[in-house]
């Protein structure tokens, strides 16, 4: 196994009149070589604390982090050599062009001068940022900075790449280019740990997901595994202007969620015909503008897991995490 984390706990000591904070609580999971693993969780779930410990810049209170079999808690220098890290904070390279930044960091990470230049050319072309390759950092948009920051890590990716919110501010076309690069790195055997809030994007890009909540692993599995614990279908209706929310019919399996004019419930597959008939009736009567009936998304499953407790099915999918639930 490329990365193996066992019972990792991180407690930040409290100060005067301030209690300590448990940022990570008995975390266990792994990343295989060539695997792309998404780390999902709300703000404050403990994701950044976790990756800082893997990258050798923070020290766990207890537990182990093994990279290629080596204990990186005892040998953080090894972690820094083997992990390429793209931090969440916007990289600051005022006065430095993207080409210079990618080349210098590639050389610091061990590449020779010619290899660094060739790799910078390759990434600039692949991410389509050639137009800004010679523009000074302070004049770049947030998206181009983010892509440059990704290229700085991907230039010499090591055995494990840690990407913390890599696509924030990036336009949809270049996002696809970035994900293509991530997949190519995976194909060359590089493990990728992707930290994100963006559930939809994670679903499309990763092989496996680990969901963190309040410092614990609450679910782990493929996107299909995680969705299995959900009711099956999702009915979303758009209420007509001024219309009241409808009463929930008997086949509804979740509390309705109301966001503006949108009203959403989940239901079992067997109730699809009844739900269609009910929604068509509401539309004919003018109570709703439109409706859609779709399979439950990973986002629904994620929200349910984190906000409404963990159902037995999903808990079972987290063989290492279930003991902490």
């Amino acid at each position, binding site marked *: 196994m490329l990365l193996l984390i066992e019972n990792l706990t991180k407690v930040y000591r409290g100060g005067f009149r301030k209690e300590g904070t448990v940022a990570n609580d008995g975390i266990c999971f792994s990343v295989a070589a060539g695997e792309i693993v998404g780390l999902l969780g709300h703000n404050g779930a403990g994701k950044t604390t976790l990756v800082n410990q893997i*990258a*050798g*810049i*923070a*020290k766990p209170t207890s537990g182990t982090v093994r990279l290629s079999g080596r204990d990186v808690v005892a040998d*953080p*220098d090894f972690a*820094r*050599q083997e*992990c390429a*890290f793209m*931090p969440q*904070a*916007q*990289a*600051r*390279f*005022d*006065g*430095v062009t993207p080409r*210079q*930044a990618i080349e*210098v*960091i590639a*050389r*610091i*990470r*061990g590449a020779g001068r010619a290899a660094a230049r060739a790799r910078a050319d390759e990434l600039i072309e692949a991410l389509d940022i050639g137009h800004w390759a010679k523009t*000074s950092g*302070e004049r770049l948009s947030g998206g181009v900075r983010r892509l440059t920051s990704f290229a700085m890590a991907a230039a010499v990716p090591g055995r494990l790449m840690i990407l913390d919110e890599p696509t924030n501010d990036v336009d949809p076309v270049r996002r696809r280019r970035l994900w293509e690069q991530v997949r190519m790195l995976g194909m060359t055997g590089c493990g990728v740990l992707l930290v994100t809030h963006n559930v939809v994007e994670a679903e499309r890009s990763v092989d496996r997901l680990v969901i963190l909540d309040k410092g614990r692993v609450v679910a782990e599995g493929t996107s299909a595994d995680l969705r299995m614990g959900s009711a099956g279908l999702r009915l979303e209706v758009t209420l007509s202007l001024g219309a009241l929310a409808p009463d929930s019919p008997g086949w509804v399996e979740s509390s309705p969620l109301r966001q503006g004019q949108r009203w959403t419930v989940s239901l079992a597959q067997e109730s699809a015909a009844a739900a269609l008939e009910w929604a068509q009736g509401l539309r004919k009567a003018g109570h709703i503008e439109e409706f859609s009936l779709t399979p439950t998304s990973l986002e629904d499953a994620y929200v349910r897991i984190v906000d409404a407790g963990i159902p037995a099915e999903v808990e079972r999918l987290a063989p290492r995490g279930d003991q902490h639930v």
Partner: protein
Amino acid sequence: MSRWWRSYRLLLLWRVLRIKAELPMFVILQTAFSVGIIFGFSYLLPPEATHPDFLMYLATGSITMSIITIGMVIAPQGIATGKQDGTLDYDKTLPVPRMAIMMADVSIWSLASLPGLVAAFVLAGLRLDISFQVSPLLLPAILLVMLASTAVGFGLAYAFKPMVTLMVTQLLVFFILMFSPVNFPADRLPEWLQAVHRALPIEPMAEIIRTTLSVPAGGVSPTPFLLVGVWCVLGLVITYRVMARRV
């Protein structure tokens, strides 16, 4: 080429690229300080009171100030900003020895004071019309004061939170300019303040620069070199311990 040296060299290149846009601002700031000391301070006293010894204090003091301003004020402010914007954390993820990161930072901030230092020399020579009696120890003296003031500035920046660092450095520049025996002899200060300065590195820094530019009859004393050296090591030790610590 050893890993340490390669890391140091490339980190230095990375810093030069990042700092070069700000370099003109440093030169302007340092030159402004020198102008303030050389021109402004001489206006404070009537012309008949401008004894050659006092002029020598102003000339050498303006040079010391131009170094200290970068090392103890601008450099720690740069570190405080780097702490806030994540630049320091990013550098910590790079596969380089921690000591190489620190030495690259210390080197670049020390070197950043060079252009302003030259400006201070030129201004002092032009305005005050004094002749320096330069010691061969001048170059090592300048390098030591550069390194030590940056090391002490870094020690402050790493030990304190960014906001505190910004405030402390503002206070420090005021204290050094008005209440430190840099631009005037120590015996003009009250005794208790003289005692405070005997424990601080500012007075020996000024003395090193003054006595290597205008060698006294008894020759250049090694004591201030030793004191500044001790402060330099102390600053580097604090910086390294805080920087290399994994929290």
